[in-house]
């Protein structure tokens, strides 16, 4: 936590130093001081927009993760469907958001629904592919063993493949947590009247670079908080996955060395 704060302070100092050194005009890159001023002057407005975007992000993440898992499981459990579901999955990733955004607003209106839908679409792919990959790559030895033990097809999927694929799913969820804010903001750019993305657009139109960066800063904070919260949650949910970079954190296990 302390290290995080030090890192953050260092970044802010770097930013200030860069602005001071390069003398970049404030309408292109305002100094941290100006951004802080803008943030404090409008903190209630920014907070209101941040709550809206935050809700879009969380809902999009939840929905996208759920659908992604469902897709991955369907691909594994239904070999016949895989042939046309897999291309569908890939195409879903290739469609640029602003191409379908007008359609989404047509069907879901101008409210939060279309933004959540857009965030969901962006999150769906990383979760689906990561989980699908994990399910496919189950250690063959485990599958062999389960087969000799007389496991049914359902047991193979739910009691062997799925638990074994949880680390892969976790990777996909981490990516999703990183990408969710982008999904929500892009959705707002393309058609919304509230949220941090909308605030950035409006500030852009009014040449208010400090407000734009203030909104950006808040968005970055939210993205960081989301990523770390997701990471922590995942590590707690899947404690058996040894993580060589974070071993001091596995305080639920004792430190006995293996014999």
């Amino acid at each position: 936590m302390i290290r995080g704060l030090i890192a953050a302070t260092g970044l802010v100092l770097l930013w200030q130093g860069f602005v001071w050194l390069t003398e970049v005009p404030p309408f292109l890159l305002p100094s941290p001081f100006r951004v802080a001023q803008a943030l404090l002057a409008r903190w209630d407005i920014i907070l209101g927009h941040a709550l809206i975007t935050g809700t879009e992000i969380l809902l999009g993440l939840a929905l996208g993760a759920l659908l992604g898992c469902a897709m991955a499981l369907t691909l594994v459990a239904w070999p016949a469907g895989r042939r046309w579901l897999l291309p569908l999955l890939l195409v879903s990733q290739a469609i640029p958001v602003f191409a379908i955004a007008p359609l989404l607003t047509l069907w879901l209106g101008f409210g939060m629904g279309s933004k959540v839908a857009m965030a969901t679409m962006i999150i769906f792919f990383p979760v689906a592919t990561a989980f699908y990959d994990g399910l496919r790559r189950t250690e063959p030895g485990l599958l062999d063993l389960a087969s000799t033990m007389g496991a049914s097809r359902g047991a193979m999927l739910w009691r062997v493949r799925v638990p074994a694929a949880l680390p892969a799913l976790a990777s996909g969820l981490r990516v999703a947590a990183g990408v969710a804010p982008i999904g929500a903001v892009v959705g707002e750019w393309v058609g919304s009247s509230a949220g941090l993305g909308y605030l950035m657009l409006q500030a852009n139109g009014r040449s208010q670079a400090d407000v734009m960066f203030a909104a950006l800063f808040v968005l970055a904070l939210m993205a960081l908080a989301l990523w770390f919260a997701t990471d922590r949650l995942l590590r707690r949910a899947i404690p058996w996955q040894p993580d060589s970079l974070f071993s001091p954190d596995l305080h639920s296990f004792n430190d006995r060395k293996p014999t």
Partner: protein
Amino acid sequence: MLPRGLALAGQPVLGTLDITVSAGSVTALLGPSGSGKSTLLRLVAGLLPVPAGGRVIGDDGRSVAGRVAYMAQQDLLAPWRDVLGNVVMGAHLRGLRPDLNRARSLIAEVGLTEADSEKMPAQLSGGMRQRVALARTLMEDRPVVLMDEPFSAVDAPTRHRMQSLSARLLAGRTVLLVTHDPLEALRLADRILVLGGTPAVPADVAVPAGRPPRPAADPALLAAQAALLERLAEAVP
């Protein structure tokens, strides 16, 4: 029984076979790497489809499916379940209620403690994990036990201990043991088959006197080991 042998991916791996394994005894399959011993074992385990005309049957004439327990070179412990959970894995996969008391006593029999039974596989050493695998195999309580180089991944002293342990615990079951270590075969087996040639066919080899597990210090055993090593070395191109 494989009247026409077995080909994998077009390459003949196993030649015409007709092996009868005596019940209640340990049969060792020896051979250099790639000689098809694992293939044969997987065939018996039901992991490979039996080719046309072939049969894998018990002495009652029925297929052995459902009556085998399989123990591989890797411990294959599920990292998401603790030791106890792994030992009762079979029941868990079959959707049945596990006999936890029996599981606990098996864990003790393989030399692990009560505290160990709550640990996760990541916290165990290689030797300990293989013990858990052995307990799991015993938990299955099947008449036929198939072992594919089960102790080759652990160090020599542990291997020695595990060999003695398994010989004791598996007594009375029909064991088909695949190994590339002649010493292991000589210590544990009632009958040794050496797989050689392409496609591979088995050949019987003399087994030293005495009941397994035979002491490693026995001079007759050591001499036999030397002879076997020579024979296996010849087969390697």
